[in-house]
């Protein structure tokens, strides 16, 4: 059976399980079963012929396995962390999101890929909306629109590619002779990997997501994109260069930003840059490095998001200028976040040391000295921004006097598991190396590599010590490329509102006189069915959705959420039918 089926069924029946008081059991059981099941997947399964296309739902090779392994592990950690959340909808969205990501990882053709790709985009949007703040709703819409646009570019590429080669199988595309179609697909993938200049959706949306939603989001969207890039586009020069640029671009913003979760979000851009660059260099070692780094990165970045999320959950604050001195009140969250910080910086004995260095060494061995130095500089910035600045201004620095308690046990347990994995991989790299798609001959623990790392970290620390006054956070935000569509949309609205508004008013008059009465009658019939027929099955959750929906409704005018809901429901039923067969 397809591992995504567990998550789809879990999402579908979660309201029922909640009524039976078994929600927490399901939240633990589903990712655990999937994590065990992926070890026993056959090489290929779920081939379906549909409308003359051969859809492949399951194709399993070493590249798939390493990503499946970390995705299911991450789902388990995320579910532990989110165990205390009572709102069923958040868990459903997270499950659908994980299912989409597993579906993309396993699929063997572009059509299946596209379906799961869109499922991911829609499900993750709900993880932002469930925060239910005005900013989150707006950020969620921008997130969705950007991803829909990216999905359309991807779809255009898929159609053009089908026209060119009459084959939809999702396989490696050779760098020589790649056509426009292939580049369109690549752009679609690059949008999800947050490659500048199409990266601004990420630091825009992730800081506005729910506490647990951000933990899921930081793991799946970008790393699924790394997987599809590694599958289809290894050895593309554009990826190598853009990846190295990304590492510096992301870390540059992380140095100046103020919101803890926005710093971490920018830092995803930087870290995914290493993976994109590794894929772009395209040697066995660099692709190995990209996979290893994706694995290690998912765990420690989730750990950092969990730590910042715990602070947000307990204090309601995530801006560095409002925090400080929390080590007295949340010592465990501090320990775990610092472990995440040193792992991401690549300290010896942590997972960053054995994964990031592999990509940098691969760049060196392919004589890409400039890329190598760019990535090394980015790792200096990493230690500066996430390794020192973030923990310093949250847990040490000037005491803000913000009242706080330790986070609930399940949040700390989720962080503890992730922190353990960071050290485990650092001490025992073979665990990770033997999962990689190519044989590994790289040894991270050499005298020179240790010397290089200790010097870089030590002297970055000295730099922070000298400049700490300059880095004091202030309540400001920094412009990024989302300016173009956020300000541009205003201009567009102003131009469009006049003529469009006039037509709309006229149409409204017609509608009011003709259609209004009929619609009212239908609506009355439907609402009777809704309250009487459906609600006794899942009344708690339905009323919950109504409440959440009311909040959303005050903030928007269209009925997009209903259309999306309908579309997801239909996709969902089709998928369950297909996958269960």
């Amino acid at each position, binding site marked *: 059976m397809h591992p995504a089926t567990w998550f789809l069924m879990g999402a579908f029946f979660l309201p029922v399980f909640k009524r039976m008081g078994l929600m927490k059991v399901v939240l633990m059981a589903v990712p655990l079963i999937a994590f065990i099941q992926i070890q026993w997947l056959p090489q290929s399964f779920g081939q379906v012929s549909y409308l003359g296309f051969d859809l492949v739902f399951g194709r399993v090779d070493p590249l798939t396995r390493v990503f499946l392994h970390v995705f299911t592990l991450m789902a388990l950690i995320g579910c532990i962390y989110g165990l205390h959340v009572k709102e069923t909808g958040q868990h459903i969205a997270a499950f659908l999101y994980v299912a989409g990501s597993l579906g993309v990882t396993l699929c063997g053709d572009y059509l299946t890929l596209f379906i799961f790709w869109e499922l991911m985009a829609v499900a993750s949007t709900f993880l932002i909306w469930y925060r239910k703040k005005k900013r989150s709703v707006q950020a969620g819409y921008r997130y969705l629109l950007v991803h829909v646009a990216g999905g359309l570019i991807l779809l255009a590429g898929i159609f053009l590619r089908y026209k060119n080669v009459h084959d939809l199988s999702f396989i490696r595309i050779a760098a020589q002779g790649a056509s426009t179609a292939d580049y369109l697909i690549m752009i679609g993938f690059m949008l999800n990997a947050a490659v500048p200049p199409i990266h601004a959706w990420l630091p825009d949306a992730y800081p506005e997501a729910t506490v647990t939603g951000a933990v899921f989001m930081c793991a799946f969207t970008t790393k699924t994109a790394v997987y599809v890039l590694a599958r289809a586009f290894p050895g593309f020069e554009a990826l190598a260069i853009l990846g190295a640029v990304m590492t510096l671009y992301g870390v540059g913003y992380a*140095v*100046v930003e103020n919101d803890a979760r926005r710093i971490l979000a920018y830092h995803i851009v930087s870290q995914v840059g290493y993976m994109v660059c590794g894929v772009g260099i395209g040697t066995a070692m660099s692709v190995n490095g990209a996979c290893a780094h994706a694995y290690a990165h998912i765990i420690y970045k989730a750990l950092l998001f969990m730590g910042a999320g715990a602070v947000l959950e307990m204090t309601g604050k995530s801006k560095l200028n409002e925090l400080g001195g929390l080590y007295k009140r949340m010592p465990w969250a501090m320990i775990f976040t610092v472990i995440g910080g040193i792992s991401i910086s690549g300290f010896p004995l942590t997972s960053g040391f054995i994964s990031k260095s592999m990509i940098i060494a691969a760049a060196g061995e392919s004589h890409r000295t400039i890329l190598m130095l760019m990535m090394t500089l980015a790792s200096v910035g990493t230690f500066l921004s996430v390794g020192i600045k973030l923990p310093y201004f949250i847990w040490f620095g000037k005491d803000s006097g913000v009242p706080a308690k330790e986070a609930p046990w399940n949040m700390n347990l989720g962080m503890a598991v992730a922190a353990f994995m960071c050290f485990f991989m650092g001490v025992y790299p073979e665990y990770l190396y033997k999962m990689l798609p190519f044989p590994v001959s790289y040894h991270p623990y050499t005298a020179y590599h240790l010397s290089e790392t*200790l010097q*870089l970290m030590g002297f970055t620390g000295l730099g922070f010590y000298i400049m700490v006054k300059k880095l004091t956070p202030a309540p400001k935000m*920094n412009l990024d490329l989302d300016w173009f569509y956020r300000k541009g949309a205003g201009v567009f609205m102003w131009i469009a509102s006049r003529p469009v508004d006039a037509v709309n008013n006229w149409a409204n008059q017609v509608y009011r006189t003709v259609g209004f009465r009929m619609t009212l009658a239908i609506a009355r019939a439907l609402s009777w069915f809704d309250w009487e027929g459906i609600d006794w099955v899942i009344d708690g959750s339905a009323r919950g959705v109504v409440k959440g929906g009311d909040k959303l409704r005050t903030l928007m005018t269209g009925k997009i959420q209903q259309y999306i809901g309908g579309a997801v429901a239909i996709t969902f039923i089709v998928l369950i039918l297909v996958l269960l067969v």
Partner: protein
Amino acid sequence: MMKRILEVLNKHSQVLKRLFFAFLLVTVAYDFFAKRHGTHFFGDLIMGFWSVFGILGCLGMIVVCKGLSHVWLEKEEDYYDK
């Protein structure tokens, strides 16, 4: 328990500072003895190269990023709400 350990460390911040500077000296000294292998470019042959790279990279990054932020990118938090 954790809190007490941290408070003790906090009290002896001067000692920590000295330990940190000693650590920096040790890392540079260690670089003279670390065996080079598979050198990729000239920097790998210079003793203490990564120390210089680290401190200059760190300071440079703070100056450039903070500078760009101050003169150009930095806006009030409600910039987009207006």
